[in-house]
């Protein structure tokens, strides 16, 4: 990390961006007089919630805004003005002096071209006349420099054949292929699992230190900011709210908005374990306990899963099954919240779907409110389903766009209750009140609501029939942190009042930590660890859990440094969880 007086590489000065024509609020600038400076060897984080204008600002430095965008102000790369620059010159700069990494590596690569072809294309665009052999040699070197060992295989591979982490590394290799001075990283780890994210952040940090890159990091994740940034610019509604170095911003934010933003971020306790040695005791302690969740004091089980297997058939002429869930047993007591955590592909969502009867079981049994789903008749199954509420990740796609909110919330009532029309209407009004939405929401459509409001509607629908169990599958992942905090509050309040059991599925350990009573950690279809949330998340017994916890960045630069060290130590050791 270089000091604060390192030379300025890119300066953005009083930049405003507007999109004339079209929308009703046309002409209003989406970015309003934004200024900041990128310095050699430093990471500047541009932070803000959705719609704050951070991505638009970043794209303006590349001249990659839609044709109708009006950009004023000054963007200087070294001594060169970029606003209004010649298109050919801008092309030279893109991929040359300025490299870019995007959010979703799977869609940022062209699906029909090999990785080698795509990176090679970037190389050739900026150094003409390279021979085939020298391009190949350069590609192998590039991939090695971003931590890809089997470069030759990766170069031949197509995007769908690689993991998200490998793709993002390849994307970084492509971004640095032109030996840039500036690296723009637009939400570079948002689509990745935490353990993968930690590696990518580490790589960006290395590049900064090794080649003195100036990095513009665009993110909404305060944990990522704490982990990687040197300086922070907070944006809101197109304008800069606050700028500070990372230590100052997190310890003494001066603006109310920044403080509120930081307060809304769910917290993880600092890791209670100093090193692997101190865990031994815990592991032996737990060995005495039964593998399934210890039955909490009184309450009866709302849901019981016993040795559940779910196998997905692969369609095609050679059928091979994939075991998505492998021998899972768990139990949720009435009135308790169980957090099911794991990375993508761990099978956590499949468990939720299996409980709702949406996927068939290959083995084992599921008992919901006293009904064995496997043995139940079609009628009993319908009754069981009426006892389950389901909240999905993306409320925009889980609410029918042609239904009014009243129709959406009222649908389960129409199907399963004996209420007449007036009764349904009253019930919908009560439900809207319960999720703290104004009564006039009933007549509106989902596109008229914000993301947070939509998710409240989805929750109202899920609790319409007074469920015994609420399954919430990543209910806040698509929401901004400030909205997320409100939705979590609402869930907690409703659960306390209505007393349903809740299966809370999430990849976000901090969110889980804030909300749940018990937690179960899934890895490759199995539950590797489960128990009281406070215990599991503070002193994990399992290797994988420990790694997952260490990889989750926290919104505190000092604490995060300690976690990073812990993660580095752990990631050198092979994973042994699930083996025992």
């Amino acid at each position, binding site marked *: 990390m270089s000091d604060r007086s390192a030379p300025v590489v890119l300066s953005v000065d009083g930049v405003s961006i507007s999109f004339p024509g079209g929308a009703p609020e046309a002409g209003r600038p989406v970015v309003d007089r934004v200024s900041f400076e990128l310095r050699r060897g430093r990471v500047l984080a541009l932070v803000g919630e959705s719609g704050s204008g951070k991505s638009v600002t970043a794209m303006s430095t590349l001249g990659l805004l839609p044709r109708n965008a009006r950009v004023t102000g000054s963007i200087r790369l070294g001594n060169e003005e970029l606003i209004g620059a010649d298109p050919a010159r801008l092309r030279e700069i893109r*991929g040359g002096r300025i490299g870019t990494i995007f959010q979703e590596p799977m869609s*940022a690569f062209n699906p029909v071209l090999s990785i080698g072809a795509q990176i090679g294309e970037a190389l050739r665009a900026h150094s003409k006349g390279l021979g085939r052999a020298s391009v190949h040699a350069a590609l192998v070197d590039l991939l090695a420099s971003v931590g890809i060992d089997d470069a030759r295989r990766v170069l031949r591979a197509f995007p*769908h054949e690689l993991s998200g982490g490998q793709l993002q590394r390849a994307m970084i290799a492509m971004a640095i292929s032109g030996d840039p001075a500036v690296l723009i990283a637009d939400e570079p780890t948002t689509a990745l699992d935490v353990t993968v994210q930690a590696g990518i952040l580490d790589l960006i940090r290395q590049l900064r230190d090794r080649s003195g890159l100036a990095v513009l990091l665009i993110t909404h994740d305060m944990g990522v900011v704490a982990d990687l940034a040197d300086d922070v610019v907070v944006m809101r509604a197109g304008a800069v709210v606050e700028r500070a170095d990372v230590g100052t911003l997190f310890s003494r934010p001066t603006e109310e908005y920044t403080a509120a933003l930081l307060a809304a971020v769910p917290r993880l306790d600092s890791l209670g374990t100093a090193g692997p040695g101190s865990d031994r005791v815990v592991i032996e302690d737990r060995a005495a306990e039964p593998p399934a969740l210890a039955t909490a004091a009184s309450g009866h089980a709302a849901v019981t899963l016993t040795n559940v297997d779910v196998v997905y058939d692969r369609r095609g002429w050679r059928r091979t099954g994939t075991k998505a869930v492998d021998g899972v047993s768990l139990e949720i007591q009435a009135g308790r919240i169980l957090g099911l955590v794991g990375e993508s592909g761990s099978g956590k969502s499949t468990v939720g779907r299996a409980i709702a009867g949406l996927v068939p079981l290959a083995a084992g049994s599921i008992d919901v409110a006293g009904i064995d789903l496997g043995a139940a008749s079609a009628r009993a199954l319908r009754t069981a389903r009426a006892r389950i509420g389901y909240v999905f990740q993306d409320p925009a796609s889980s609410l029918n766009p042609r239904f009014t909110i009243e129709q959406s919330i009222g649908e389960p009532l129409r199907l399963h209750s004996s209420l007449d029309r007036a009764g349904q209407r009253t019930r919908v009004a009560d439900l809207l009140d319960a999720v703290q939405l104004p009564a006039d929401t009933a007549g509106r459509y989902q596109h008229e609501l914000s993301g947070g409001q939509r998710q409240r509607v989805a929750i109202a629908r899920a609790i319409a029939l007074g469920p015994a169990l609420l399954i919430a599958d990543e209910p806040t992942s698509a929401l901004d942190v400030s909205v997320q905090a409100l939705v979590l509050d609402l869930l907690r309040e409703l659960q306390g009042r209505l007393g349903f059991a809740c299966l809370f599925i999430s990849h976000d350990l901090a969110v889980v930590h804030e909300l749940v009573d018990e937690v179960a950690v899934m890895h490759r279809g199995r539950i590797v660890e489960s128990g009281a949330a406070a215990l599991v998340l503070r002193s994990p017994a399992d290797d994988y859990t420990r790694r997952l916890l260490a990889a989750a960045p926290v919104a505190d630069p000092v604490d995060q440094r300690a976690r990073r060290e812990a993660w580095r130590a752990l990631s050198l050791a092979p994973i042994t969880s699930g083996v025992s």
Partner: protein
Amino acid sequence: MRTAGFVAYRIAGMLVVLLAIAAITYAIFYLLPTNPAQLSCGKPCTPENLARVERFMGYDLPWYQQFWDFLRGIVAGRTYGSGAGAVTCATPCFGYSFQLNTTVTDLIVSRFPVTASIAVGAAAVWLVVGVGSGVASALTRGSAIDRGIMTIAIAGVSAPSYLVGLLAILFFSFTLHLLPSGGYVAFGDDPLQWLGHLALPWFTLAFISGAVYARLTRGQMLEVMGEDYIRTARAKGLTERRVVVRHGLRNALIPVVTIFGLDLGGLLGGAVITEKVFSMQGLGALLIDAVHTLDLQVVVGFTLFAAFLIVLANFAVDLVYGLVDPRVKARV
């Protein structure tokens, strides 16, 4: 290894489909209340004569025996009747037209070049024109060029081929005297005449299908140009031309390939209306005649041949798909 297995699997599937089609067409053939023997029996058609003709054609046998003879004829050839009056139908035998006194195979062989000339030429024209104008339209979205192309495309999509064909004849042949109004000259006889006679049928078919392709390509291009990887391509400093062709068009054409294969396969089985309008003796024209004269052997043979072409086109599309879209192999 996997590819070989896939090909074998698909070929087996194709055979099953063709067998089913043969069975269905043969069933229709039998459900019709017409006795083909009656048509060839001559006048006066005494019961003895009819029985003789039926025996000669093999219609006296039970239906499964006849179907079996038909299938066996395809792989081993067959002989109708016996002795001096016997008619041999060489492998592959798709039946024998007793009205035209020739094998269905010979009919297909003699007529197919006409249809193939029309179909392949027209397909090439509409692919180039349709895709080209679709891309132009997408890249100039909302402009006069876009609106102009899409207006013409609407006309093409909604106009029936006989109308376009007749208008083309009226304008290019009768008014301008540029091109012949119909007929066919083999390529081997006179390449220039061949081209002259085919120009109008090509234009007619290309106008109609090209319109569909222009609309499809435009829609695909607009969608693809909004994808993340297009932004990536621009962010690495590629020229706009390269972004459009290599990253945009390459992906936009994937669904076009599917439709193109099936369209071409279908057209090769006979461009019925176009052949009639331009008085060209291709498969389609012959098929219409056969239906009129109840020459059922020809109908069955042609149907099977057309089905074979479509099944083959489907297979070719799947193979090409694997080449243009690497994700497909993973799903096999």
